[in-house]
């Protein structure tokens, strides 16, 4: 551990966040399934509070060094960034899966940027909207931007005014097996947003689970 986090999430809050990520990415996967007409496999979601460096390292370890991502920033009570990321080598395969197999390579290359941006837009909006709705808040979502680069290019340095460089990093792998296509959705929040998120998670937990525990319940 390089720095003490100013905000810690309790086990229940972490569960709640994992659950929200799961709901969000499940809806995103359903959208992707409709686009590629094949089942999309999802991993068990992971949520962690890490430093920016750790997030960059995690990206580097998962895939090839060159990555392509679609990035959308969101603003509201909570500010952050959502990313759809996969190896750059798979970029054309994703486009081909989405636009269909009849197009020539030239057409696919020409459509690449647009198709990536649109795919990212559908998936990330499905994910963010589900999470925002469940938290009872709305967020403004920026237009998608396609970025190519290595891990560090996806996580620019934090605002100078915030001494903490810890970020919330949540990711779920997704895969389209027949096409050997995989990538993941990551979400990043800065510390001030994390403080607000903690409060919203408290309300969410109250709503979905309060009164659920009774003396007759028996946890093995």
């Amino acid at each position: 551990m390089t720095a003490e986090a100013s905000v810690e999430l309790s086990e229940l809050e972490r569960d709640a966040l994992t659950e929200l990520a799961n709901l969000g990415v499940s809806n995103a996967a359903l959208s992707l399934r409709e686009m590629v007409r094949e089942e999309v496999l999802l991993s068990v979601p992971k949520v962690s509070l890490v430093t920016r460096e750790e997030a960059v390292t995690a990206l580097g370890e998962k895939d090839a060094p060159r990555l392509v991502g679609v990035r959308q920033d969101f603003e509201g009570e909570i500010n952050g960034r959502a990313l759809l990321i996969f190896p750059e080598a798979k970029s054309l395969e994703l486009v081909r899966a989405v636009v269909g197999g009849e197009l020539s390579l030239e057409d696919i290359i020409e459509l690449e940027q647009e198709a990536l941006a649109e795919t990212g837009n559908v998936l990330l909006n499905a994910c963010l909207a589900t999470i925002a709705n469940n938290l009872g808040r709305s967020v403004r979502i920026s237009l998608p931007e396609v970025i190519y680069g290595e891990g560090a290019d996806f996580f620019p340095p934090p605002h100078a005014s915030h001494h903490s460089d810890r970020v919330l990093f949540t990711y779920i792998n997704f895969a389209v097996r027949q096409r050997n296509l995989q990538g993941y959705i990551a979400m990043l929040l800065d510390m001030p947003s994390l403080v607000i998120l903690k409060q919203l998670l408290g309300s969410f937990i109250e709503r979905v689970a309060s009164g659920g525990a009774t003396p007759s319940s028996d946890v093995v």
Partner: protein
Amino acid sequence: MTRKVLIVDDSKLARMSIVKVLKALRPDWLTVEVGDPDQALASVGHEAPDFVLLDFNMPGKDGLTLAAQLRESNPGIGVAVISANHQAEVIDRARATGAVFIRKPLTEQSLAAFFDGAAGRGKFAQ
């Protein structure tokens, strides 16, 4: 009639929210919670639940594999797989094991439909 329901989910929050919906619907039913699939298999043996509600997306063993094992060893138990991942393939696989698929977030209506469906099939004919 009081029934016993085994709830299998690695998320404590998810278990709590399932219990909340269940208690609103069937206040007198008993609940047993476990946090992983292996505990679920052990628990079915000594708790003898009437129903099992299980999460699809769990570390180690997914809910569909567990549902298939439970249905095979205890065909009399009503099993429902609860998941936000409602792609057609997942729903089909759940049904192929003899389990019922219930979409997350869980509602009283969908849970009631599962219990009533089990009763309707004569599982609990009085």
